[in-house]
């Protein structure tokens, strides 16, 4: 143990370099885990069971195709979707089922009903922000769009946007409105709670995009990025370990005397070997502790309220792996040290 203290100058830089490198790995790991988990949490909060059908050229399809398309597949929850962008909100024409698919929560009133959808196109449901745009109308009051007045049926609570709809900034009206006022070419449809739509992917007329697919794709990309970053951080660790090897080897010259004297008084090669391995282990452990400390310090000082995802078992397994690699890096210098002879030591001093 005293050797380590005596040779501490030799170890300072090693410890610093190792700490920074290990810290890099830890922080990259935590940050990327945090990002991945936040993104996937957000995606999964949207419900993974809504599929969007994007039709390339609606003019080629007959008027009732979507109804019969759904019927032939036994799909009950489905909605057309046509969005018109206004200055500060989107006007969406859709069916009553849309609310169910996206699980809207209402601060007042409710979504327009299936009956409204069929018979009464002058109702409107407001997202939280569009509600504000229209000057906070109450339920059953009227709002005016393009000279047409709509009766407010419900106001949706503020909610995270999902992949397909920015709910807060949207006002929803029955599909009839669109069919009546604009072209018949609706190009988006939503289908809910339906599995296996993938097999229609190759249909020439439309493409299916499900939230599950999107989230899967996002996860794949994110975890790739995560792996690349982690890899880079591991490279940093490896480089710092190479420094450790180099440093220990070059310190052998100075320490030949010490080793020689110990051997002259009965230390076996094995003893010297173990001593050097122990030193390496101490350097590694101290580095690890410093890097852990650094990580916690930085995480907690940077962010007092936002929560990081620290996967302890994952962190632990990473640290174990790093330590193992470090120990392997210590094998060669320790072997070299154990081979120093008394003669070499006597001659050099």
């Amino acid at each position: 143990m005293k050797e380590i203290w005596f040779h501490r100058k030799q170890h300072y830089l090693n410890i610093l370099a190792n700490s920074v490198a290990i810290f890099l790995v830890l922080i990259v790991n935590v940050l990327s885990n945090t990002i991945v988990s936040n993104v996937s949490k957000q995606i999964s909060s949207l419900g993974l069971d809504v599929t969007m059908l994007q039709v390339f050229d609606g003019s080629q399809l007959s008027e009732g195709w979507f109804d019969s398309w759904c019927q032939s597949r036994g799909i009950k929850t489905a909605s057309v979707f046509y969005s018109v962008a206004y200055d500060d909100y989107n006007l969406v024409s859709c069916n009553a089922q849309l609310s169910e698919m996206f699980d809207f929560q209402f601060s007042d009133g409710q979504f327009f009903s299936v009956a409204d959808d069929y018979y009464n196109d002058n109702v409107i449901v407001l997202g939280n922000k569009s509600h504000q745009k229209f000057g906070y109308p109450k339920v059953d009051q009227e709002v005016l769009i393009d000279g047409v007045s709509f009766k407010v049926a419900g106001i949706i609570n503020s909610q995270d946007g999902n992949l397909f709809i920015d709910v807060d900034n949207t006002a929803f009206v029955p599909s009839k409105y669109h069919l009546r006022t604009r072209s018949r070419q609706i190009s988006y449809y939503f289908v809910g709670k339906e599995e296996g739509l993938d097999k229609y992917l190759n249909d020439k007329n439309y493409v299916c995009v499900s939230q599950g697919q999107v989230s899967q794709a996002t996860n794949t990309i994110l975890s790739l990025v995560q792996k690349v970053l982690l890899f880079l951080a591991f490279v940093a660790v490896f480089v710092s370990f190479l420094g450790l090897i180099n440093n220990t080897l070059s310190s052998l010259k100075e320490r030949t005397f010490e080793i020689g004297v110990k051997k002259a008084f009965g230390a076996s090669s094995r003893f010297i070997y173990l001593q050097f391995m122990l030193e390496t282990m101490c350097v590694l452990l101290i580095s690890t502790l410093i890097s852990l400390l650094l990580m916690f310090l930085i995480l907690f000082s940077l962010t007092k309220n936002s929560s990081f995802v620290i996967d302890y078992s994952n962190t632990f397994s990473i640290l174990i792996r790093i330590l193992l690699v470090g120990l392997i890096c210590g094998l060669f210098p320790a072997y070299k040290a154990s081979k120093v002879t008394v003669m070499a030591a006597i001659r050099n001093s």
Partner: protein
Amino acid sequence: MIKLINISKKYVGSNIEVEALKKVSINVKNKQFISIVGASGCGKTTLLNILAGFDYPDSGMYLLDNEIVNQNTLKIQVGMVFQEFHLLPYLNVMENVCLPLYLKNKKVQADEVKRILNMVDLSNYGSFFPNQLSGGQRQRVAIARVLASQAKIILADEPTGALDKENSQNILKIFKQLQHQGLTIIMVTHDEHIALQSDYMIRMDKGRVVSERNLVSS
């Protein structure tokens, strides 16, 4: 006790070839205090290193108690006192003395260590570090270290080489005392005066033993 028969040692470098020892034969009896003298470069240190097992002869036989030496028993029986002391700078006197015990994983017996430090007159210096000691004190620490290793045979390569007269005499006194306690001592020196105080003087020249002289009438 120790018998060297026709020991030869040749150092082969890239551009040089030195015959450091040429068929050296010596006999050392138990509890004898032997000195080896000779000019610089005649092979004294080489001989000691072979005796200590730090180096190996190219030919010849090394018998210890009538058996061919085995490195493990050698390590237990033989201890070396170096000219430059070779104390570890980061250990204090006590720890330096106990080093052989640590290294062999033996238990440190406080009484024993105290006795040894007393013998070399260093009982008050246990917590000093080597750089806080004089040359003579350092050499005595080195001797104490050999004693702690419980070696039966003490090899000393110019133990007085770095010391003044008074300190040299102190070291000699200690060696004689150790001899009385039953240890065998082989000391290399280039100082005739010191060699004359031993029991038996071996003179070497150019890798050979040239004369032997018994200094005690028995």
